[in-house]
């Protein structure tokens, strides 16, 4: 199976993104449009500003009863004539889908945007079996044609200009070159309409599921997911096992927040509840419905109290739209279907901590993501937790300490901080040493060794020859 992760390239890819002027503009644009708008949407909800905490509690309660909710959901869907398959890992999920495709003689597939199918590497597996797979979300379609990867959870082709899309379409679809988004959308509409009508199978993800009524729910503004789940004979839905909520009431709150968080909308344009295939004497709709529920590492998060909270995530991408780091490096740097702050936590837990260590350390912990998250997930806390496991090693996640020299430095510093006399002496000698090394007036312009990164673009103020503690001693007491 293809490895969906390239997390090792974080630094190199971020550098590449930062030097791409056009990408910088696009990222700033998407953040400016969606970032502040989501905040306004949350507080406009009838529940008031406390809705995020309320949603957090709902999600937490659902996750703590996940076994029950999954059973209830599966029973209902099965009772409605659907098939439910529980996949322990990516491989099982993929083989299940392949088996369904084979059974129904599937030659062509249309897909609605789904990150979990990227996580399990579904497209490659289907293509290897000779099945034609078309992504149908316009952004996903563009990057599929270009042979690239999504760079934003809800706006996957945000890194491409209209001119680039124009050239791509001229080349791949044989249309006359145009850079007009409306004309380009129309061109894709025409091509994809044929694909929808011809497809044997539709594959979608799942935004949420409601256990009590036995439905999965999907949302899109384009209508591609509805097409995908309505026109082909067979509908297969992939669902990360954590996506389920208990009741309709829970669903209401979370879906509103999902719409607000994702696109600053009150409600997404099309919301579909799918509970199973329709009876045969109904005029249309798939005659077979398969729900594939995927673990693929999620139960490990569930079992670790420090990371269980991550399963509350509804993948809305609001955190991407406010993250200063994402705003500079874009989605590709994360080397995973999950980018931005959510990706920085989820990806290491899926791909391996050591492998994805740059994702764990490469943020400023500014906390903007937590504030933007519609379910108030404490992403900075989990980033620190990941760093902790990596710094000191951790058996449950098979993490090995990342840096001996850094650990030594931290331990040494800690020793000094708990020995005040030594700390004082070190401070004064550092100040004196520095005066010798940097004899020139003014700030330091070049730092040595691992600190050199700082002074590549910045100077650094020197340690004062008279730190506060010595000034304090000699200060005049107020009379």
């Amino acid at each position, binding site marked *: 199976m293809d490895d969906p992760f390239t997390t090792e390239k974080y630094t190199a890819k971020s550098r590449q993104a930062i030097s791409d002027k056009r990408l910088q503009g696009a990222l700033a644009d998407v953040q400016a449009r969606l970032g502040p708008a989501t905040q306004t949407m949350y507080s406009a909800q009838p529940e008031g500003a406390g809705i995020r905490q309320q949603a957090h509690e709902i999600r937490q309660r659902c996750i703590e*009863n996940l076994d029950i909710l999954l059973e209830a959901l599966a029973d209902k869907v099965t009772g409605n004539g659907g098939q439910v398959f529980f996949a322990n890992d990516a491989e099982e999920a993929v083989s299940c889908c392949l088996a369904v495709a084979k059974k129904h003689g599937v030659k062509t597939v249309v897909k609605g945007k789904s990150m979990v199918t990227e996580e399990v590497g579904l497209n490659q597996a289907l293509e290897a079996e000779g099945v034609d797979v078309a992504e149908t979300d316009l952004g996903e379609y563009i990057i599929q044609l270009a042979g690239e990867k999504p760079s934003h959870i809800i706006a996957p082709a945000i890194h491409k200009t209209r001119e680039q899309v124009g050239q791509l379409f001229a080349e791949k679809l044989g249309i006359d070159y145009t850079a007009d988004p409306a004309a380009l959308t129309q061109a*894709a509409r025409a091509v994809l309409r044929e694909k929808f009508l011809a497809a044997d199978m539709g594959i979608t993800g799942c935004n949420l599921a409601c256990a009590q*009524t036995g439905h999965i729910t999907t949302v899109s503004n384009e209508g591609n997911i509805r097409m995908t789940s309505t026109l082909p004979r067979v509908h297969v839905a992939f669902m990360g096992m954590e996506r389920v909520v208990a009741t309709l009431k829970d669903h209401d709150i979370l879906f509103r927040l999902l719409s607000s968080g994702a696109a600053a909308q009150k409600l997404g*344009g099309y919301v579909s509840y799918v509970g199973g295939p329709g009876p045969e004497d109904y005029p249309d709709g798939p005659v077979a419905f398969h729900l594939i529920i995927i*673990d693929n590492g999620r139960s490990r998060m569930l079992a670790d109290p420090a990371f269980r909270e991550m399963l509350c995530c509804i993948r809305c991408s609001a955190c991407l739209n406010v993250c200063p780091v994402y705003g500079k490096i874009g989605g590709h740097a994360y080397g995973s279907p999950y980018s931005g702050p959510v990706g920085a936590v989820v990806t290491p837990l899926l791909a391996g901590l050591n492998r994805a260590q740059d994702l764990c350390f490469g943020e400023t912990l500014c906390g903007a993501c937590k504030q933007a998250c519609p379910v108030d997930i404490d992403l900075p806390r989990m980033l620190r937790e990941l760093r902790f496991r990596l710094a000191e090693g951790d058996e449950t996640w098979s993490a090995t300490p990342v840096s001996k020299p850094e650990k030594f430095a931290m331990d040494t510093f800690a020793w000094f901080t708990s020995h005040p006399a030594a700390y004082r002496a070190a401070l004064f000698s550092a100040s004196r040493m520095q005066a010798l090394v940097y004899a020139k007036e003014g700030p330091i312009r070049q730092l040595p060794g691992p600190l050199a990164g700082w002074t590549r673009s910045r100077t650094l103020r020197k340690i004062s020859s008279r730190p506060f503690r010595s000034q304090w001693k000699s200060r005049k007491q107020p009379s």
Partner: protein
Amino acid sequence: MIQNHRASFINRVRQSLGPDIGPADVRRARIFPETSEKVSQNLLQAVQSRAPKERETLLAMLMDQAGPLHLHVTPVADPAEAAQQIAALVRQKNPEWGEKKSLIRWSHPLLDALDLESVLADQHIPVHTTAMDSQADLQGQRQLIRENTVASFMGITAADYCVADTATIVMKTHPHQGRAVSLVPSVHVAVITIDQILTNLTELYAVLDDEKNTPENGLTHHMVFISGPSKTADIELTMVHGAHGPKEMHIFVIRA
């Protein structure tokens, strides 16, 4: 078929939740409460006892919310006026795919009452329906309905509910009512009555919650909320209407 791991899967989830989670049946009872809350009972009452003036307020609210979503809402006096309005639309619009104009509509009492077949006769517009005869060849009927839906430039549906605050129509899936009618044709027209308008999603969910267990009127195997025409902003965040679904959407609200 490959092995399904439901039991071991659920068991692993249960193990991962830790030893102190408590017995499943106790938790089940807690997480799926039997009785609906008082709040939703009150909401239901409010919906049922709404005065005509309040309904007009909701209609105005719906029209306000629909505007920015490119969703056209037109109040009409009665079914006959709705039919006239639709006829005018049909005359005005050109088909997006192919030359011929044809329509597809649900088989639904409210739509039957519009008698579009006669109203559109002078324009020579065929009006297809998605009615099914459960005694005849189902495959063949589905095939024909599919072809008619794809060939039609306008699809006409009713709806179960309409939500003013989000400008949303709610459609469960009932017999003789094709799902693709509101999806595949370039123009979607929904005809509703004013008493179907609810205030907001909270009210809608109270209603849905109330009827979720009635067999014939539960949530059905498929339900869709539609808030305006299809749209995308995937190319440089420029909003374009008509990505895959309808480019245009109209709601006619019958006041009488």
